[in-house]
């Protein structure tokens, strides 16, 4: 139980920090696409018998870079939609070849937080630290190009390079999180708390802090509720993460009046 708690908290922190930039850049679709690609990777990895983490990493990185490179020419959102479809199509193909049982597929999509081993805790923490380090290194150019793209470009920051680095970061965060919380939850955690935080404050540092706090609150409540009711944790994370945003919007509307 303590392992679950630690791992989920680590994932929440990473999701909130990376998610802050996802919301800032309006990249929610990408954040949805990458975990779906990762799902296909896990299915493929189990088929050829390698570590599912490897499959997750390769596919989420491949999907993310595919989106980044193909959308240089053509519409970003249409390209993203095509890449997701392709990845899910591959996932369906791999699943039809493999002999996995449906519950295992379900847990890859919706998470299996309550069955985490001590082994996975260490791995998650290491990957999370790598994520944090990358975020710290690219923080300034990423922030500048997300908020003032013209200024960033004038200062010699290549938008494409920042975009690709950012996508790689999303892919790494996804690889960290998907085995623990599932492809769909990772998306909810990356969008809900940061979007709520952004509604309440426009300053980056308080917004990021608030996003982390909300994400932690989300997973803690969700773990407790899931433990009590035995319902899937995905339900609690998905609804609570979105509820923060609704509450923040309501609060902002009240204050404005």
């Amino acid at each position, binding site marked *: 139980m303590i392992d679950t708690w630690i791992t989920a908290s680590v994932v929440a922190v990473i999701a909130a920090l990376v998610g802050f930039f996802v*919301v800032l*850049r*309006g*990249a*929610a*679709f990408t*954040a*949805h696409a990458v975990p779906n690609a990762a799902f296909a990777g896990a299915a493929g990895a189990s088929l050829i018998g390698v570590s599912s983490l490897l499959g997750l990493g390769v596919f989420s990185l491949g999907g993310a870079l595919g989106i980044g490179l193909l959308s240089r*020419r*053509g*519409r970003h*959102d*249409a*390209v*993203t*939609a*095509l890449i*997701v*479809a*392709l990845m*899910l*199509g*591959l*996932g*369906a*193909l791999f*699943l*039809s*070849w493999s002999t996995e*049982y*449906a*519950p295992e*597929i*379900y847990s890859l*999509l*919706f998470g299996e937080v309550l069955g985490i081993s001590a082994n996975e805790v260490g791995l998650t923490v290491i990957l999370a630290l790598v994520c944090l380090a990358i975020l710290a290194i690219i923080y300034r150019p990423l922030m500048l190009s997300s908020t003032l793209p013209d200024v960033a470009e004038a200062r010699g920051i290549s938008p494409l390079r920042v975009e690709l680095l950012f996508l790689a970061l999303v892919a790494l965060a996804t690889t960290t999180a998907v085995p623990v919380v599932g492809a*769909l939850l990772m*998306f*909810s955690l990356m*969008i*809900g708390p940061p*979007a709520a935080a952004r509604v309440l404050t426009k300053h980056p540092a308080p917004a990021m802090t608030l996003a982390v706090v909300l994400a932690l609150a989300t997973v803690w409540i969700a773990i407790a509720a899931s433990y009590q009711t035995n*319902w*899937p944790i*995905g*339900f*609690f*994370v*998905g*609804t609570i*993460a*979105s*509820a923060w*945003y*609704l509450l923040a919007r309501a609060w902002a509307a009240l204050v404005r009046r």
Partner: protein
Amino acid sequence: MGTIMHAIFQPGFFASTPVHAALLTGAVVAVVSGAVGVFTVLRSQSFAGHSLADLGTLGGSGAYLLGLGPLWGFVAAGVTVGGAMDLFGSERRKSRDVSTGIVLGAVLGISALLLYFDTTQSSTTGATVTILFGSLFAVSGYTVPATIAFAVLGLALLTILYRPLLLSSVNSDLAAARGIRVRLLGLVFMMVMGVTVALGSLIVGTILSPALLIGPAATALRLTRRPVAAMALAGGMGLAATWLGILLAYDSYRWPPSGDGWPVSFFVIALIFVGYLASGLRTRRTTHAAQTAERMPHELIEVA
């Protein structure tokens, strides 16, 4: 010659009833998706289109739980959530992106719960996979007329709304200045898209449905600037990909590894993706001009 024909069209392909139903409903879905998809791509609402297919999961799993026909679950969820997404969002692209994400996240969570109930209450664990991935070959007889009815309804609405919708998709300020109620139109379009995608999710599966909506339309808009031509082209390409996919999937029962056949959705998506990549080769020379043209259909000048 005969042996080649036999290699391409496996014996029994034309006599199989599931294949007939799949060819027919797949064609209907592909044509409607192509037409609606052109507007989806023009309005940069691919994320919403993709999400609506995922949300069809909610309707499907809910209907499964209540024991209703999945068709109604899919359609009801498509209309409701499409409307909710539009009401939540605003005109700004970034905030629309986030609000779509919020609705999607919440609904996926609820779907997780409903699927959990489905799998725990019924002893069959296949519900998750069936609802998430769908299969063209699983189309039952009674859904065929209902599918066609909804498809005709969607196309009719699109025809009525064609001019104001096109203008508001390309330049919403101009449309508003001309007295078109842009928000209302957007809401109606989201609902039409909701029904189209929901229908697609049911017939061809949740993953293939948005691919049919966006892939052929994005490809067509790279090849022609005229919206009507793009709609026809998108419908045609979607149809070709679907039928070819069905043929390949039928053939794949003889392929390794297991003899269960490869999924139809994989073939159709792969064909659509290859088509999109191929269309990029043609536009490479005029990259910049083509990109601006993609945003500015020719007919706009006539409309304005």
